[in-house]
C-alpha cells in the first residue's frame, strides 16, 4: 500500500513536506502515505458529503428504479426483497395509452404540462412586472416589497388550506365576492370539484411561486448599472425600448436559472394539489405527482408507481438537458 513514486512535480513537493514536518509527526501518528495526503485529501474531505448524498439521494433512487422492475403489491411488501420480477411490465402498463392506466397517466401528464406552463409563465410575468415596478424609489416601496414576499414566507400547508377555505362553494370568500358582491356569476361556482379546479390550482400555485421570481429578479435588476439607462434615455430610448434592450438581456442569466427551477418545482408540486383536493384530485386537476402517489400509496401498487416515477424523472432530465443545451448555446452566441 505504499505510494509509487512517479516523476511528477506534485511528488516533489510532497517529499519536501515530508522532510519538513512529517518526521516529527510520524512518531505520534500512523504515517499517512504522501499520495493520499497530497492527492487524496480533497477526496477524503468530500467523503462525508458523498456518503450523505448516497444515503439521501442515490440509494433511494437506485432502490426506486429496482422496485419499478418488481411486482411489488401488498402481497409482497413484507418481504419486498423477494418480490417477483415484473420485467418491463410496469413500464408497459404505464405507457400503454390505449389502456385505462396508461390513459389516466397520459391525461395527468398533459394536465401537469398545461398547469406548469401557465403557472411558471404567469409567475415569471408577475415577478418581472413587480420587480421593475419596485426599482424606482417611492414612498412605501419597502412595505410593498415585504408584502410581496409574504406568500414565500408562509408555511405551504397553512397557506394552501386557507385557499381551500376561500374556494369553498357555500362559505368561501371567493364566491362571496364574485357572486354575492360583484354579481359576476349567475350562481356560486364550484372551485374544488369539476373543471374549475384547474383554475383554482393555477391561482394557488401562482400565488405561491411568483414571489420567488420577484425576489430573484429584483436582486438581478439591482446589478444593472444605472448609467446604461441614463445613456439610453439621452439617446432617446423610451421606457419600452429600455426594458427590451437593457433590462431583459441583463436578466437573461438569472431568468435561465429561475425558469428552470420554477419549472422543476411546479412540475413536481405535491403539496398544493394534496392540501387543496385531498388524495383524489378532480380529473381536471389530476397532477402527475398526486397520480403517482395514488398508484403507490393509496392503491398499494409500488412497482407501478415506481415505474411512473422513473418515467417522470427521465422526462424531467430530458427537458432540463435540452433546456440547458439551448440556453447555453444562446449565451455563447451573445457573448461572442
Amino acid at each position, binding site marked *: 500500500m505504499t505510494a509509487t513514486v512517479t516523476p511528477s512535480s506534485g511528488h516533489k513537493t510532497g517529499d519536501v513536506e515530508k522532510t519538513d514536518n512529517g518526521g516529527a509527526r510520524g512518531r505520534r501518528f500512523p504515517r499517512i502515505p504522501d499520495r493520499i495526503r497530497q492527492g487524496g485529501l480533497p477526496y477524503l474531505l468530500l467523503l462525508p458529503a458523498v456518503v450523505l448524498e448516497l444515503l439521501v439521494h442515490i*440509494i433511494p433512487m437506485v432502490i426506486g428504479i429496482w422496485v419499478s422492475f418488481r411486482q411489488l403489491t401488498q402481497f409482497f411488501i413484507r418481504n419486498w426483497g423477494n418480490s417477483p420480477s415484473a420485467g418491463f411490465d410496469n413500464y408497459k402498463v404505464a405507457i400503454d395509452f390505449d389502456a385505462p392506466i396508461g390513459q389516466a397517466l397520459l391525461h395527468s401528464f398533459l394536465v401537469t404540462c398545461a398547469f406548469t406552463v401557465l403557472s411558471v409563465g404567469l409567475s415569471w410575468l408577475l415577478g418581472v412586472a413587480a420587480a421593475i415596478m419596485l426599482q424606482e424609489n417611492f414612498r412605501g416601496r419597502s412595505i410593498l416589497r415585504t408584502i410581496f414576499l409574504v406568500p414565500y414566507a408562509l408555511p405551504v400547508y397553512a397557506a394552501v388550506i386557507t385557499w381551500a377555505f376561500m374556494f369553498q362553494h357555500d362559505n368561501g370568500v371567493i364566491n362571496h365576492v364574485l357572486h354575492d358582491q360583484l354579481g359576476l356569476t349567475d350562481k356560486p361556482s364550484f372551485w*374544488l370539484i369539476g373543471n374549475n379546479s384547474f383554475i383554482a390550482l393555477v391561482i394557488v400555485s401562482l400565488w405561491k411561486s411568483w414571489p420567488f421570481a420577484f425576489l430573484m429578479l429584483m436582486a438581478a435588476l439591482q446589478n444593472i448599472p444605472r448609467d446604461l439607462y441614463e445613456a439610453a434615455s439621452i439617446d432617446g430610448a423610451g421606457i419600452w425600448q429600455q426594458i427590451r434592450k437593457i433590462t431583459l438581456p441583463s436578466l437573461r442569466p438569472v431568468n435561465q436559472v429561475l425558469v428552470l427551477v420554477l419549472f422543476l418545482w411546479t412540475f413536481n408540486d405535491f403539496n398544493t394539489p394534496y392540501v387543496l383536493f385531498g388524495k383524489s384530485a378532480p380529473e381536471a386537476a389530476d397532477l402527475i405527482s398526486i397520480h403517482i402517489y395514488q398508484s403507490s400509496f393509496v392503491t398499494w401498487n409500488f412497482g407501478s408507481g415506481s415505474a411512473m416515477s422513473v418515467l417522470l424523472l427521465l422526462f424531467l432530465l430530458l427537458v432540463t438537458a435540452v433546456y440547458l443545451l439551448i440556453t447555453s448555446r444562446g449565451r455563447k452566441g451573445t457573448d461572442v
Partner: protein
Amino acid sequence: MRKARAAAAVTIVSALAAAVTGCGGGSSEGGSNESPKTLTYWASNQGPSIEADKKILTPELAKFEKQTGIKVKLEVVPWSDLLNRILAATSSGKGPDVLNIGNTWSASLQATGALLPWDTKNFDAIGGRDRFVDSAVASAGAEGKDPSAVPLYSLAYALYYNKAMFKDAGIEKPPATWDELVADGKKISKDGKWALGAEGGNLSNNIHQVFALGKQHGADFFDKDGKPTFTSDGAVAAVKQYVDFMAKDKIIAPGNAEYAQNQSLQDFAKGKTAMVLWQAAASTFASQGMKPEDWGVAPVPVQSGVPGTGEQTNSMVAGINIAVFNNTKNIDGAKKFVKFMTSDAEQTLLNKTYGSVPPVKAAQQDPAFGASDVKVLRDTLGTSAAPLPQVANESQFETTVGTAVKGLWADAAAGKPVTTESVKAALTKAQQQMTP
C-alpha cells in the same frame, strides 16, 4: 489518484451493499418472547383528539400492567397516518407489538402477512371466537381464512334526524324506506334548508353509502372469486340512486358535493340539513352544541319493508379491530393484552367512552348500550349490517369507486345530467383502473 478513485468506488459499493442487504425486507418468522415485560401499542385516534385518547387509555394500560406486570408503551396514531405507518412497519419488519386497524383494511393487511392470524388456538387464548358478534368477526379478514385481527369497537350507520325540522315540515316519524325519505325530503328542502347531508368528496364515505345501497340492489361490487363487478346493474342502480338524491330528487344541497371534512355534520347541527346518514354521531353533535333531545335516530332506510340481512342490508359493518404484529418479540404478552382489551369490563368501559358498540356479546348487555341511539346501532350491527368486501385490493376499490362517485357528485352539483349511462361509464373506468 487511481487509488483514491478505487477507494471511492469501494465505499460506494459497500455502502450500497450494506443498504440493500440491510433493508432486504422484514424477516418472515413469527413472534417470540424475547422481551416479555414490555409491549408497544399503536392505538388509532378514536376520541376528539390524540391527547383525549391518551387520557382515556393510560389508566387502562396501568390496570393491565398491575395485572400482568407488562408495561405498555402507547402511541396514538392519527387516522391519516395509520395506514402508511403500518405499511412502513410491514416493509421494515419493525413495528409495534399490538396495533389498531380500520376493519375495512383487514383483508388488505391480511394479504401482507404482517398480522398474526387468529386461528382457533389464538381465539381460545382470549376466551373464544363465540364471544364476538358474527358480523364483526366477518369484517376482520377474507372469508375462509383465519381473521387477521379481533374486533374492538364496532360501529354501524344510522339515520340521524332533526326533530324540530321534521315537525315544522309536518312529518311525524322518520322515513323507513327511500321513497318515504325522498317524499319527506321534498317537503323539507326549501327556503335554504335541505333534507339530507352527504360528504361527496370523502371517498370512504361514498363507498360506505353505495355499498349498503348496492346490497339492497343485490350487488356486491366483487364476485365470489374476488373479481370486481362494479358495472353490474345493481351497482349502477345503487350509485345512481345515491347521487340522484342531489341530481334528480334535489334533497341534498349542491354544496355537499365538495364536502369531505364532516361539514355535513356542522350543517346538521346548525339546522341547515334535516338528516344525515352517519356512524355514532352523538358526541359530535354534542360538541357542536346540540342537545340530545334535539335529534332522533332511526335505522337507515331500505327499498321497502324492514331492515334485515341480504337485500335489506342497510349498513356496512364499521369499526376498529385490534391486531398483533407478526414480528412481535412478545407474542404471549401481546395475546394477553388483546384478551384484556376485549374483556367484558374493558369493552363496556371503552365502547361507552367512545360511543361505539362492543363487538363482544356479553358487554352489549350493559344498559348503556340500550340508550336509543346506541340501540339502533347495536340492532343494525346484529341484524342488518354486512362487512365491506373482504378482498385484498379493498383499498383500490375505495379509491377508484369512491373517486367515480365523487366525480358524479361534481356533475350533479354543476347541473349536468346523471344518467344510467354516465354512471355506468364512470364505474367502467373505475373497474378498468383496478390492477389485477
